[in-house]
Each structure stands twice: as C-alpha cells, then as structure tokens.
C-alpha cells in the first residue's frame, strides 16, 4: 500500500435510498491528495461534491445515505473501516472541515472562545486556562482584531466574515493534516470572500497544510488550487493539475464550463451557457452522463460508461474521445 498520498479515495460510491428511489449521489469517485496539495473539487450544485466530503468523514446522514463501496485511505488507513469512536478522534483532529454557512455554524449561546476551547479539549488534555490562551492566539492568527475581547463575545456579535474566521480557527486549532473547505465563501459578500480566501492561501503557504477545497467557482480554483477534479452528476469527469486543466481542458464538460465563465476583459457580449439541464441523479442518462448535453456525443456515448483515460501525463478525462479504439 502506498503511504506517500495523504488521502486516497478509491471507487467511492455513496447512494441515498430515498422513498422515491435510489439516488447515486457519488458514483465511483477516485482521487488522491498529497501532502501540501490544495485540491479543488469543482462542480455544479448537486453534483455530489459535498457528499464526497461528508463521505470522507463518514458523516453522510444515514438513513437515507449509505457509503456503498470504495475506500478512503487517509495516511494509509481505510477510514470506512473505522468505528464511530475512532472517527470521533479523527474528525476535527486529523481532518477538519469548514462549512458553507458561517452564519449558522456557530452555537449561538456559547462564547466563540469557548467553542474553540471545546475543539481543543475534545482532542487533547490541555487545561482550560491554557486552551483559552491558545484560542485567543489562534483568533489573532486568523486575523481577528482584539482577539481577547472577541473571544468573550457571542456569535451574534460578530460579522459574517469574522464568523468564518472563527470557523477556520476552530478547524485549524488542532493542527489537522487535512482541511476540507466546503464552499467556505458562498454566503459572504465578495470583498469578504477575497479576504477569507487570502487567509486560507496564507495559512497554506505558511504551514504547508493540505486542503480539499470544494467550490463551484472556477476563478477561486484557478487562484488557490494546484490540483483539480471536475465533478459532473456524481462522477469525476476530469482530473489533473490546475494548470493543465485550465490551459488544455480535455473533457467537453470542462471545456464548456470554462467557456461559460464570464470574463471581465473579454469583448464577447453573449454569456455562454451549457444546453440542457443537470441530470436527475435518480435516473441518470445511460453511458456517459454528460452525453445528452455534449456537442461531440456519438451513439456509443449512450451505451458505454467512459473510464478514466490518461490522455496527457497526469491529466485524466472520462471521455471516449480519448479512447482511440472505440472513438472512430
């Protein structure tokens, strides 16, 4: 077994068994994150990004969700075989997560300092006084002025941006090996978004911490991540370094996605869009899930599920175009 990868997700399938039917939210997803990587997981809403993150932490709501198969190797150990008790020690300690919505992710009746202390004391025996000092220290490290005073305040006394800084402080205070950031800037306005992203990048470059960054925003990804996976309808369709994907997108979906990003410096006035709708995951299209919307689709696309093909070095795409034998 290889130990040089920090996190290796192999063939992960997370399904939701709902009353209306089976939803294949994450269907055969594989990727690797190395130490020091900032890995972007990109896709539209409902494509399974967040479920992937929750699956890594074994926090998929069950019922109706279930991790059906696959492996999540973290530092060489399969997390899916761990007991709930063992997971409690990994969550927030080895792997931390920052959520989409900082406004509701803090307990409204507990002082923010105490919430950080709780995170520290959940995983170490540090005495309360020392933990409090550490909490104040980390608050100032994530750029909260007057940390001493802010630590004694309640979440409602903090602005949205500050709350997200507190969330990041909580996630980082235990010095996790992997930080999962699930659209951490979605509910913040743009200037605050920029600040939070700068903070994340700053932390990353200072500590070399690995980050799994989940977003639908390609601009953020280009700026922050060194590796990238594009998800579509529960599958990864393209996977490689950020540079190679942005300069040379291989999968038709990625190509269209990059075209659809409005550019402030471009002269074109029409906003491109991708024809059609996101497929219903309860009843996904046969073969390649993107084929009904794909301008290059041929008849084989509706029958064969495309495998991951290494079309360029370290750059994979799940598209039959790169399967020279079948694509004729």
């Amino acid at each position, binding site marked *: 077994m290889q130990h040089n990868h920090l996190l290796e997700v192999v063939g992960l399938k997370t399904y939701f068994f709902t009353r209306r039917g089976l939803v294949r939210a994450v269907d055969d997803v594989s990727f690797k994150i190395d130490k020091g990587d900032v890995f972007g997981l990109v896709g539209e809403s409902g494509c399974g990004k967040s479920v992937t993150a929750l699956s890594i932490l074994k926090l998929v709501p069950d019922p109706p969700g279930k991790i059906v198969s696959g492996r999540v190797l973290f530092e060489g150990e399969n997390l899916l075989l761990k007991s709930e008790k063992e997971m409690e020690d990994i969550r*927030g300690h080895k792997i931390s997560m920052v959520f989409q919505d900082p406004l509701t992710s803090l307990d409204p*009746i507990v002082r923010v300092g105490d919430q950080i202390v709780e995170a520290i004391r959940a*995983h170490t025996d540090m005495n309360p006084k020392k933990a409090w000092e550490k909490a104040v220290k980390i608050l100032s490290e994530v750029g909260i002025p007057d940390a001493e005073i802010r630590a004694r305040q309640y979440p409602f006394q903090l602005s949205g941006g500050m709350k997200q800084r507190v969330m990041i402080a909580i996630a980082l205070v235990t010095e996790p090996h992997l930080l999962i950031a699930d659209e951490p800037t979605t509910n913040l306005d743009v200037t605050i978004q920029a600040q939070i992203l700068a903070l994340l990048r700053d932390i990353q470059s200072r500590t070399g911490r690995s980050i799994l960054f989940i977003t639908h925003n390609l601009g953020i990804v280009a700026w922050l991540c060194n590796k990238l996976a594009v998800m579509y309808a529960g599958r990864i369709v393209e996977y490689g370094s950020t540079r190679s994907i942005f300069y040379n997108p291989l999968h038709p979906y990625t190509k269209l996605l990059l075209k659809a990003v409005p550019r402030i410096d471009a002269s074109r006035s029409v906003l491109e869009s991708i024809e059609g709708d996101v497929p219903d995951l309860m009843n996904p299209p046969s073969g390649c899930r993107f084929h009904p919307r794909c301008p290059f689709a041929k008849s084989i696309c509706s029958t064969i599920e495309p495998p991951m093909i290494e079309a360029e070095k370290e750059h994979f795409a799940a598209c039959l175009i790169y399967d020279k034998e079948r694509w004729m």
Partner: protein
Amino acid sequence: MPYSKVAKRLLFGEASEFFVVINHLKNDKPALFGLAIIILLVVTAIFADIIAPYDPNAQDLSRRLEPPSWEHPFGRDEFGRDILSRIIHGSRISLTVGAVVISISLLIGTALGALSGYVGGWVDMVIMRIADIFLAFPGLLLAIGLTAVLGQSIINVMAALALVNWPGYARVIRSQVLYIKGLDYVEAARVMGASNARILVSHVLPNSFAPIIVLATIGMGWAILAEAGLSFLGLGVQPPTPSWGSIIATGRDYIFRAPHITTIPGIVLALSILAFNLFGDGLRDALDPRLRI
C-alpha cells in the same frame, strides 16, 4: 476614560456568565417584581409559624364567615378560623407541591424528551407512545387512581401530578431537540469530533431550554391548582391542614354569603402564578445571550 473603552467594558466586560445573567435581571423590572414575590412567598412558607398572627386551626364558631376587618385582614372562614394565617401556612403545601411536581416533571420530561428527539427511531416511537398514553388519560382520574392504589398522602399526590405532567415537557423538549439537532452548528460540532453525548449536553439541550422555562413557570400555577382540586376531592391534604387549594375549595359553598373566603386566596394564588411567569420570562431572556444586548 474614552467612550470606546467604556462601551467595551459595559458590553463585554470581564464578567462571568453568572454575573452577566444577574446583571441583566437587575434591569428587568417585571422579573424583579416576580422575584420579590417569590422570595416573599418562600420566606413566608419557611417562617409561617412566626409570621402567622393566629393559630391557623383555632376555631371560633360564633364568628364564622366574618368579613375582613382590622383584626382579621382577610376575614374568617366557615369555622371562624383566621384566613390570613391559613393562607400563610397553606403556602407551605402549595409551594412544595408546585416546586416538587415541576422539578420531577422537568427531570423526567427533559431526559426522555431529549433522548426521544436525539436518538429517534424506535426509541422515539416507544417513548412518545408512552407519553401519549399519559396525555390521553384524564390527569385528575389518573391521580385519583394512583392515590387510591398508593394510599392517600401528599407525597402520592405529588407523584401522581408529576406523572401526568411530564409528557408535556417531553414533547416540547423533543420538538426543540428535533429542530436543533438539524442545525449547522450541531453538524459543525460533529465534524469537530464531538461525541453524541457531548453534542446533546453542551449544544442541543442548552439551546432547547427557552420554551421549557416558560412552560415550567406556567406549570407551577397548574400544579398548585391541581393539588387544590385533589385536596377538594379529599385525596390531598386532609382537613384541617390548610393549602390554598383546599381553602378555595371549601369556600365555594359560601361563595355568595362570604365571597372573601374564595376570592382572597384566589388573588394570592393568581399573584404567585404571575410572579413565577414574570420571573420565568426574565430568566429566559437573561439566559439567552442574543436577547441580552
């Protein structure tokens, strides 16, 4: 001192949680009024023997049903006993019943309601069906049955009342827990590695408690009244031991000839319940940091 410093000290001064709560209550006039009456009641109950001007059981049949006078400010009852003294002594029974019944109901209701809402599934199913059984049963009837089986004593009355009262608390706590356990900060605590027990005790329950405080203060009045009802039926305290309920109940027969027998203890009862309500409201506000500013 510059303004900003003053403001900082006022708003976030280095005060303990307890001090902050007290400080907030200090400015809440209705709550203070309620607290004053509650303290008065407790002191009265403890020192009833010293405070009461007459022996609550001393009869004077020649002066029965006498209306209020300077000598007997609340008048005399159907046996010529001093009503003021009887109310003072009655506060012991009434307050004890109220406090004990509510405490037991709260304990059982919170524990079972939280378990039910948090665990869900068949645990929820079983606990809620048991609660339904108790809810569906007429409370007074259950209490009568219980005292009939267990024998007649004030302790059995309290047990019976707690038994019919806890499902209400359990239901409210359950619905609160159901709502709060789905909130992001609970999920965030889980991601942080908190165990179920920790999440329930330090995040879900504290956030669930606001409506329960209000319910408990209202319940206090209900328990005092229910004890009165049971005593009236001869299941609670036995004559001549006074309780507010029994004074009101026996006074009913003379409501036209001597209305003071029922109205005065009634006013005392209403005032006490009001006091508990006002204090409960104030306490709820003071305990919620969002309402404190």
